[in-house]
């Protein structure tokens, strides 16, 4: 992870911690949705910081985040799928379209995307003449998240994606990391050979034996 990702991930973990607390205490739905939306948005942004450049400002990044994970090369893709609780990469890929509409609904909860007249978990709406408020509103997306198997699975995958983030967020591919480790081992090996040779020469000199023997 680069330093930008570390900062974003710290924020994601903190938001996620609050979400878990709200969930355990059975808090009013709007607050749980608010934190869930923030976690998914920031998780996507934390991931896309892996280039070292700022990702687009738009909120629509959670579905993109899942797709970007799915676009990674093997064997990284399989490892990511396993971190997220799937047995195989193909199962992860098949799962994505099943939750895409739900993930978009979740993203649209952000007040800037919900617009002046749409339900959102933070402010009463419509903006100019409020008729509903988040605290008492029955969010359809919440029913889908909690009363359907795919919704509950999405929540579990989000939890896993937060916990496992450092394992898949890095920009270095497995092949590159392997190459770097091999290079470092080679340097260590060369240093060890030089050290042992110097030690052999020193012992030879100390014992009066010519050091080339």
């Amino acid at each position: 992870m680069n330093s930008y990702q570390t900062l974003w991930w710290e924020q994601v973990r903190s938001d996620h911690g609050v979400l878990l607390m709200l969930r355990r205490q059975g808090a009013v739905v709007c607050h749980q949705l608010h934190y869930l939306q923030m976690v998914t948005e920031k998780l996507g942004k934390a991931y896309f910081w892996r280039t070292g450049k700022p990702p687009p400002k738009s909120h629509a990044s959670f579905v993109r985040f899942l797709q970007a994970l799915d676009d990674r090369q093997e064997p990284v893709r399989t490892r990511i799928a396993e971190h997220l609780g799937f047995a195989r990469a193909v199962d992860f890929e098949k799962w994505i379209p099943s939750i895409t509409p739900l993930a978009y609904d979740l993203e649209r909860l952000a007040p800037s995307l919900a617009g002046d007249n749409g339900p959102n978990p933070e402010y009463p709406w419509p903006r100019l003449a409020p008729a509903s408020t988040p605290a008492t509103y029955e969010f359809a997306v919440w029913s889908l998240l909690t009363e359907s198997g795919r919704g509950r699975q999405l929540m579990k995958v989000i939890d896993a994606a937060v916990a496992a983030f450092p394992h898949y967020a890095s920009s270095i591919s497995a092949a590159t990391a392997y190459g770097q480790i091999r290079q470092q081992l080679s340097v260590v090996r060369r240093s060890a050979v030089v050290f042992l040779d110097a030690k052999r020469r020193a012992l030879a000199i100390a014992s009066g034996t010519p050091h080339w023997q």
Partner: protein
Amino acid sequence: MPGIQSDRDEMARSYADRHLRTDAGIRSIYYLPSQAADREIQFIEINELLATRDKDPLEPIDFDVNVGAESSYSLFVLDVTPSQWEKIQANELPLPDGWTLDGAIHFTGEE
């Protein structure tokens, strides 16, 4: 470099297939090879499930799919709504710098 070009086209096709398969909102994808760097894949993805955000400039996402590998390509995806796409075609909405529709290849997932 024809070898790189055909390899890139193949990778682009593979990414497009996967995106069309995994995102129910994507209506079609335009692959823009003519002005892209050798190891860069540029996509415009027209997505019906995106919320409309007319005030934001169009910014592609760098998917950073395979950094560090010898055969790596950078994948840049520009998400647009159907109405933004209409404006792009009518030259009312500019594409990001270095992006052009000249020579664009259309993927729909139906072929």
